[in-house]
Each structure stands twice: as C-alpha cells, then as structure tokens.
C-alpha cells in the first residue's frame, strides 16, 4: 500500500518536474481513458478519433496550470472543447414572412416525434403564438388519433382532414392561413433513411410545404449508428436543427456529439419526459459533462 502511494507520488512529482508542459507522453493514459469513456458514452468511434486528435493537437505544448496534473488539465481541455463543439452553432425557429410558419418534424421510428410535436405546440402556445398541429402519419395504427388526443390535452387545434399525405399537410397550412393560426407543426411517420419511397415522401412534403424549419428528431440513447442516420437524413432532406429526446434517462447521450459532428447542425431542444411540458433548451456544457462522464 505504502509502496503504491510512493510510486504514484513519484510519478506525479516526476511529471511536474519534467517540463510543466503537456506532452504526448504525459497524457497518453488520459487520452486512452477519455477515448474509452467517449465510446462507452455512445459517441461514434470515428468522431471519437477525430475529436481526440484535434484536442490532443490543441493541448500539446500547453503549460500546465500549477494546481493540475497534465492529465487533469487535458480533461478540462476536453470538456471545454466538447462544450464548444456542441454549442458552436445555434438555431432559432424562423418565422415565415407570410404566415403561417411551417415546422416539419422527421426521424426514425419511435424516437419521439409525435410527443415532441405536442411539446413544441405547447411551448409556442405559452409564447402567445397560435399553433396548429397536423399528423401525416397515415401508416402507424392510431397515429393520427395519438396527436389528436395530445392536442386536446394541451388545448391546441389538430387538423384532421384529407387522407393523402402531401394534400393533408398543404390543406392544414391553408386552414391555418384562413383561421389566422401562425404556425403549423407537421408530424410525420417514422421512417428509415434507407427507405427510398418514404424518403421521397419527405422530399415531396418539403417541396410542397416549403417549411421554414425542418427538425431532425433523434433518440438520446442511439448508439454508433447515429452518424449514419443523421448524415443520411441531412444529405437527402436537409434539416435545420436537431431535437434529442429521452434525455431524462441515464443515457450518456454521445449521439449528441456524433450527430452535431457529422452534420454540422445544432441541437435546439432536448426532450426530458413524456409530458408536453418536458422540453428544455439545450445546454452544451451540461451535455458535454454528461458525455465525458
């Protein structure tokens, strides 16, 4: 026990004496454990590699603060750099010059789009806006009913006419215009980025609605594949902002870094529960802390 203590003290003293600067050698172990931690947090391995290389390049040669070891110092640099990356860009909902503003939601199956549509609608209603909800999910059993029930719960109207996807959405916009409702939130069916027909449907919605805002909804517990789905949705459809859901779980949320890194698009809001009130602004520093563990 005493020998171990002497050995580690010796190492620290040696490191501090050696140069007081961060070198490849004195942070090697720290880099390895940061890498492991980021992978365990579900950050995509390519994103991890790139991130570590960039931070390492930034860190080498930096003088170590008196109260820290090189290892501790580099972890602080990681935290700052991760916070910076996650918060680098911000996106605020654009409003249409001629109302209504259209917000289109898209994402994989089960990630929380319908629930988020209601959250967004309630948020806008509390900001004295006049939102209209419409679901164009004509596939999932009782999907349109689900949104109708949510709409009733939060006191927001839900457009429920017409059964063809694109027509239903455009009629909803027309309805909003006539009724002087200023925002239309379009909830779409969950789909795979590799489903050509369904991605075509999204494209048709985009072309016909010309939405001012397209938001990509992603499950906060998504693993390595987050880069593939996000990049594919961004390449095929293009989105303005990201919504990360189910962050009330104990998922580390590495998908946040993966998605931001590979698309360059910002995270706007996070979902923190099943109720319409459970929407929070995205705080890059908090998520950075959580990802680094």
């Amino acid at each position, binding site marked *: 026990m005493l020998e171990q203590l002497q050995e580690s003290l010796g190492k620290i003293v040696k490191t501090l004496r050696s140069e007081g600067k961060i070198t490849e050698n004195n942070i090697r172990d720290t880099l390895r454990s940061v890498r492991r931690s980021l992978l365990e947090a579900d950050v995509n391995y390519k994103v991890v590699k790139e991130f570590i290389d960039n931070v390492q390049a930034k860190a080498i040669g930096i003088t170590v603060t008196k109260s820290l070891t090189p290892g501790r110092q580099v972890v602080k640099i990681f935290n700052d750099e991760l916070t910076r990356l996650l918060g680098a860009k911000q996106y605020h909902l654009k409003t249409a010059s001629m109302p209504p503003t259209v917000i289109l939601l898209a994402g994989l199956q089960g990630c929380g789009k319908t629930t988020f549509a209601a959250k967004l609608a309630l948020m806008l209603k509390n900001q004295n806006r006049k939102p209209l909800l419409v679901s164009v999910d004509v596939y999932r059993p009782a999907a349109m009913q689900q949104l109708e029930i949510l709409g009733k719960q939060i006191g927001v109207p839900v457009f429920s006419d017409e059964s063809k996807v694109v027509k239903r959405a455009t009629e909803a916009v027309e309805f909003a215009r006539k009724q002087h409702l200023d925002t239309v939130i379009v909830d779409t069916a969950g789909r795979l980025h590799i489903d050509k027909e369904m991605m075509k449907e999204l494209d048709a919605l985009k072309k016909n609605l010309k939405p001012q805002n397209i938001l990509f909804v992603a499950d906060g*517990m998504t693993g*390595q594949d987050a880069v593939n789905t996000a990049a594919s949705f961004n390449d095929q459809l293009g989105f303005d902002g990201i919504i990360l859901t189910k962050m009330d779980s104990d998922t580390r949320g590495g998908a946040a870094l993966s998605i931001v890194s590979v698309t360059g698009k910002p995270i706007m809001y996070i979902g923190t529960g099943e109720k319409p009130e459970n929407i929070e602004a995205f705080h890059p520093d908090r998520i950075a802390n959580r990802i680094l563990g």
Partner: protein
Amino acid sequence: LGKYFRIDTRLLSTIEDTLIASDLGVELTDILIDRLKKIDRRESANLAEILKTEIKSLINSEISINETKTKPRVILCVGVNGTGKTTSIGKLAYRFRTQGKRVMLVAGDTFRAAAYEQLKIWAERSGAEFLGNPKGKDPSSVAFDAIKSALVKGHDTVMIDTAGRLHTKSNLMDELAKIKRVIAKQIPDAPHDIWLVLDANTGQNGIVQAQEFLKTVGVTGIILSKLDGTAKGGAVLAIHHKLSIPIRYLGVGEQIDDLVEFDPGNFVDALLK
C-alpha cells in the same frame, strides 16, 4: 506467441472498429480482440471465420427456453419508450395464430395517448382477441381482468402490453413489479415469459436497461427490433454475455410478418457484413 507470429495489429484495429461500430461496446470488444491476439499469424486468411466463431461462441444456445404447457401461457412485454413493444406483440400474435393458437392481447398501457387504440388495431389484424379498458388508469387491474377472462375462455396465449418506461423511474418500475405480482397471484408461475423489447439503434444504455428490468421483474427473453435499419444491434450480444438472457426474436420491419426467430449464425453474419 512470438511477436512475429501474431495477427497484424492494423488488422486487429480494423476488426476492433467494426465491433465498436456495431455497438458491441468497449468491454465485449476488448474480450474478443484479446482472443484474436492469441491467434497464429498464419491463420490471418481465416480471420473472418475465426471472428464469426468467436462471436457465436458467446451466444449460449443451451439456455433452456422452457415453453410452458399451462394454459394460458402469459407473456409480459416490457421495455423503455418507443422500442417497438406494441408492434412486436402484434407480430407475435400473428405468428402464434398461424401456429393455431388462440391469442388474447391485453392493453396494459393505460398511460400513453392512443395506446389502447393502437393495440386494438393489431389485435384485429392478427385475429387475436382484445381486452382493455379505454378509460382505464391501472394496468394491474387490466391485467387481472384479462387473466380472469382468458382462464374462463380458454385462450392458449395471453400477451400483455405495457407502457414504455425508463428504468430510471422507480415509480414506473414499481408499477411493473405490481403488474407481475397481480398476474402471479392468479396463475402461479405466471407470467411465464417476460420479454424485453430492445431497439437495435440503442447503444450502451441497452445494457443498463436490461440489467434494471432483469433486477426489477426478471427478463426471460429479448426481442430486438428495427434490425431492418442500418444499426447492427450489437449491444444485445453484450447483454447476453453479461446477463445470459436468451435472444428470442428479431423485428425486421413494420408489417405484421416482419418478425423472425433469432438465429445466432444469421445474426453474426449480418453483424459483420
């Protein structure tokens, strides 16, 4: 083994990336890479096959899947939000119906908007009977009524859908434990199966989910959904390795027949493609 006879480190590094990219996680990947490190370099041409064999060896097909002969067989479906529980129950109902079973589906999700209506449609599609309470608040009482009815009517299989719930919410996990107790009071040894539905897109948190559900109610099998996407679902291997829970079925789409029985060989082949 001498350094010159070991597998090339760059090759090992590529394999490591593949395993991590498939969501096997750092721990299980390290275990597999350590095994590969012991292999003679002259075997490198066979590396793909060796890797497949190693991964397959992790899957214990010996875990007894004891399909109860009692009637009704009660299956409880559990899992976190949005993984595909309700849809999987619909697919399973269809499968059991093609096996000539009389199935009852129970709307145990009394919380989420349109959960009742969603399962009702799946019951209609699969030819199963449906039991639920559209105004119902308490899943335990819905389960109670369903089992009572199934015992009288003589159904072969009763599948109980539950609301998605995060394993971190203790009140919701308590609710699940209560549903199980109520079922057990009516039929000893029931529920005969508790299947955890996991989303193939889920990363390492899937392991925590499995641990917590196992601890709270027990899990006798895993259904891995959404394998028709590009996610590999490797976290299920880490779960199986750690907790020995059998992998029962795979969800491969949104249609009623998009369900296959888990086959280790096929799964590993798809994993490494």
